[in-house]
């Protein structure tokens, strides 16, 4: 689906991601985890062509993503950023309508099929009753779902989510992640997301990619990747990994900092 | 034009030579105390010198200059009028009305050490001594002073200065002169334009400069100023009067052209075709047009009292239907004419005006008409009379 080879990324002159290889297979949920500033979101931007690599390549379905017309990419892939700017008077439906833009010519307006797809996207995200309310009048979780509906209306094969749960309370976090999982299961939608919560990442992903200081540290199924050793190396946290007695899912519990040098910032402790 | 320059030059030379001659030749007769400053009796003498070149001023520069040294026969009584000047002392135009309100010149001979100038807003400037180092931040006034024999020590920067002012240091714009250079000249009087009084007065006060703010934009202002300077400086009222009389004489001839003729409707355009305003009867050119019997489109229409230029509606211009259009623009008259011609052909409205139909559109040379040039304004008036009554 997506293959990134040997990519280097920098902001201004400062390189933040080095020699990163990455692959996403169709139909899987992959989570990128790592400490703050490790380059997770940067990688996500690179594989969604929002940020151009200084070197290396990103392929989408075998085509170089930077050479594909950006509108073609928009039909296959959708990325949701952390922060959204919604014009204050846009309703949910008006916002979701924009998801159809990549499928229209510049002179075209919504046709019946577009309208149906928009209605479908709204139904998928369970926003029917809010469809004609303004986005800004909704709660944070509903707003996030509205933007996911916009992404769904693009009918993408890959959905990239940049910290989709950040501003949500725990209920809305679970609700959102369940939605992602459901979409993945029912539509076969490939999902790549950046998550902060390791337990969420473990519970909802087929595969994890761990990044630290712009380099890939580990990759694989949650069970294989999440070890106390890795958590100590990457996050400088002493942790206990266990399987929940009821769900059988892996979870971790932080016991404290691995390194006692408290005056050092967390992500420099092992550098 | 040339004639007038020559006149100014001659008058100035005459005054200077006479002034020097009297200063060196004979000690002041009336005032015993300040020896140098007050050569009172000299004031009477230049009158004939100024009067002679007037009729044909273009050529006789040396001729006019020669008689002056011979004349300084001390006139014993100061207030005597210039003897050889034929014109009557009665002023013709109403323009002098403002200045006659100041006290008559007679008592000045008795207290010559008091120097007195009055601003149009009523502010009075009284000095114990007659200033000797004068800076004129108005080019027009610098010229007027020079022709009275009072050479300023500094003036505003200009490209149009008369050549007798060639060596006078130029100090920047009239609006914001270079204060450092101004102070370095150690003037005992700074004459600035009254328009800039609000901004300049506090600065001058701060620097301890004595300032007089002059109103010299209109024709009548220049005559009023001449009279006032004549009384104030060197007590040379008669000398100033001679200049005034000369101007009045030519003025009468110019005005005679208008007598008995129908009063034309006149439109005075100031600016470029892209953005112009109309000069009112209170402006320099507007006043002269009124003197010559023209009816200005702006008469009775000013919203701001005594505004010199107003943006009048095109509709009123059409309704007024001027018979003569006078255009004042910076830039060479030919090019401006061309430019207006284009506007006039592009905008059919102009073509309906009598002035355009009868080809009575005149581009006034900016040197004389852009702003008041000082004494050469009489040339402007004469030219205007010729334009209006060909």
């Amino acid at each position, binding site marked *: 689906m997506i293959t990134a080879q040997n990519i280097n990324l920098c902001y201004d002159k400062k390189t933040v991601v080095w020699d990163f290889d990455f692959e996403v297979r169709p139909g899987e949920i992959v989570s990128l985890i790592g400490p703050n500033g490790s380059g997770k979101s940067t990688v996500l*931007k690179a594989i*969604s*062509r*929002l940020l151009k690599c200084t070197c290396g390549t990103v392929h989408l379905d075998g085509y170089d993503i930077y050479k594909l017309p*950006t509108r073609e*990419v*928009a039909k296959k892939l959708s990325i949701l*950023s952390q*922060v*959204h*700017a*919604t*014009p*204050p*008077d*846009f309703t949910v439906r*008006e916002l979701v309508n*924009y998801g159809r*833009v*990549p499928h229209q010519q*510049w002179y075209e*307006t*919504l*046709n019946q099929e577009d*309208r149906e797809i928009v209605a479908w996207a709204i139904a998928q995200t369970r926003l029917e009753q809010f469809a*004609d309310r*303004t986005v800004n009048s909704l709660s944070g979780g509903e707003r996030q779902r509205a933007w996911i509906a916009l992404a769904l209306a693009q009918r993408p094969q890959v959905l990239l989510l940049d910290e989709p749960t950040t501003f949500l309370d725990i209920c809305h976090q679970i609700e959102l992640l369940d939605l992602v999982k459901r979409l993945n299961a029912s539509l076969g939608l490939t999902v790549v997301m950046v998550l902060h919560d390791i337990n969420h990442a473990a519970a909802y992903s087929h595969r994890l990619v761990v990044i630290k200081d712009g380099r890939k540290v580990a990759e694989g199924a949650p069970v294989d990747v999440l070890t106390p050793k890795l958590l100590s190396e990457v996050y400088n946290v002493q942790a206990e990994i266990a399987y929940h007695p009821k769900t059988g899912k892996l979870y971790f519990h932080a016991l404290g900092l691995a390194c006692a040098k408290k005056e050092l910032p967390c992500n420099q402790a092992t550098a | 034009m040339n004639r007038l320059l020559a006149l100014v030059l001659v008058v100035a030379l005459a005054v200077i030579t006479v002034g020097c001659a009297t200063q060196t030749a004979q000690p002041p007769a009336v005032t015993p105390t300040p020896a140098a400053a007050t050569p009172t009796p000299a004031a009477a003498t230049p009158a004939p010198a100024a009067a002679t070149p007037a009729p044909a001023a273009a050529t006789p520069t040396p001729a006019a200059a020669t008689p002056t040294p011979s004349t300084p026969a001390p006139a014993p009584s100061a207030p005597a009028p210039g003897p050889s000047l034929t014109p009557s002392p009665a002023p013709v135009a109403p323009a002098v009305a403002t200045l006659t309100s100041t006290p008559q010149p007679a008592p000045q001979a008795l207290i010559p050490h008091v120097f007195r100038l009055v601003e149009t807003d009523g502010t009075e400037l009284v000095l114990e001594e007659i200033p000797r180092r004068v800076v004129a931040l108005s080019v027009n006034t610098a010229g007027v002073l020079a022709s009275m024999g009072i050479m300023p020590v500094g003036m505003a920067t200009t490209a149009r200065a008369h050549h007798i002012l060639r060596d006078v240091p130029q100090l920047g*714009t009239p*609006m914001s002169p270079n204060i450092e250079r101004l102070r370095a000249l150690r003037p005992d009087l700074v004459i600035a334009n009254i328009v800039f009084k609000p901004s300049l007065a506090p600065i001058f006060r701060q620097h301890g400069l004595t300032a007089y703010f002059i109103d010299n934009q209109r024709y009548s202002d220049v005559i009023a100023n001449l009279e006032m300077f004549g009384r104030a400086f060197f007590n040379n009222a008669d000398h100033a009067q001679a200049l005034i009389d000369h101007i009045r004489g030519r003025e009468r001839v110019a005005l005679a052209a208008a007598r008995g003729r129908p009063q034309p409707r006149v439109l005075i355009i*100031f*600016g*470029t*075709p*892209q*953005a*112009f*305003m109309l000069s009112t009867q209170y402006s320099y050119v507007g006043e002269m047009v009124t003197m010559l019997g023209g009816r200005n489109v702006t008469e009775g*229409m000013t*919203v701001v009292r005594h505004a*010199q230029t107003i*943006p*009048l*509606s*095109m*509709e*009123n211009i*059409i*309704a007024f239907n001027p018979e003569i259009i006078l255009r004042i*623009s*910076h*830039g060479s008259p030919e090019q*401006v004419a*061309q*430019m207006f011609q284009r506007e006039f052909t*592009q*905008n*059919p*409205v102009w073509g*309906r005006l009598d002035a355009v139909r009868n080809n009575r559109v005149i581009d006034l040379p900016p040197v004389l008409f*852009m702003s008041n040039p000082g004494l050469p304004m009489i040339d402007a008036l004469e030219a205007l009379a010729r334009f209006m009554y060909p």
Partner: protein
Amino acid sequence: MTTRSEAQPTAAPRSLRVVKKALVLVLALGLLLTAAVVSLRFGSLSFSTAEIWQALFGGEETLAKIIVLDVRLPRMLVALMVGANLALSGALLQAVMRNPLADPGLTGVSTGAALAGVSIMLVFPQWGALVPFAAFIGGAIACGLVFLLAWKRGLDPIRIILAGVAVNAVFGGGTSLLSILYSDRIQGILMWLNGSIAGRSWHHVRLLAPYTAVALVAAMLCIKPANLLQLGDDAARNLGLNVNVARTVLSFIAAFLAGISVSTVGLIGFIGLIIPHVCRLLIGSDYKFMLPLSALLGSLLLITADAAARTVFRPVELPVGIIMAVVGGPFFLYLLRKGGTYRV
């Protein structure tokens, strides 16, 4: 015009919104046409309606006919075009900058045009015929400079604004310098500096019309990118918009709209900033509705203001920009306080 496909209702409240918006547009169009006709009635000379009627349809060469057909009508048409242009320019720039305070002046167009225009009128008055052309070039240079300075791997709104402030300061300083150096000539150009439609004739209508037609069409083609830019750069890119290209094209069209206006009538501020705001308050921020409404209301405002400029202090003309600032400012404040669906 663009409302056709939207007007087919599927859900009641949604169709209501669209109908309401369409109604606002129709109402604005009606108001504009009314104002356009009524404005012919007003001027520094008063004519009766009968005289005006005769002027428009009678064959006789009356004073009223000359004034209505050759003075007021071209003025009204110039105001119509310039008002629409400036409002569209402001609306597009607010999308480009994603900043409600953006106005055509921000791109340097106005100050660049002012400096070029003023230097010709003051220093080289003999080339006065070149003022519109020079003003346009000056505006284009200043605008190009702003975008050149702001460009750094793409156009960032904040950098555009900062570059705009800097370029405006330099060009504005140049204009001030000239007006001080040539203070004796300044009266002649005051009207232009404050924006005036006085004295604009059929010649200017003919000059402006083709450019305006092109620019209007171009502006209407910008509806989709403008809407996408409102969603933020990342979202717009995600939806397949080349954000840098869109910013550049929109800015160019906006600068062109402002440039042709400034070069014909001088500096008229206010419309470009206020009208898009008013439109957002009235009809929402969807450019599909907002952009046409901006054009309509921009024309409406300028026609009305110009009629007032030649009437209020008749027979003296006021620069129309002053009228707009005096009347439009309070009206805008009222709208802001009253609020609407759109809150700033």
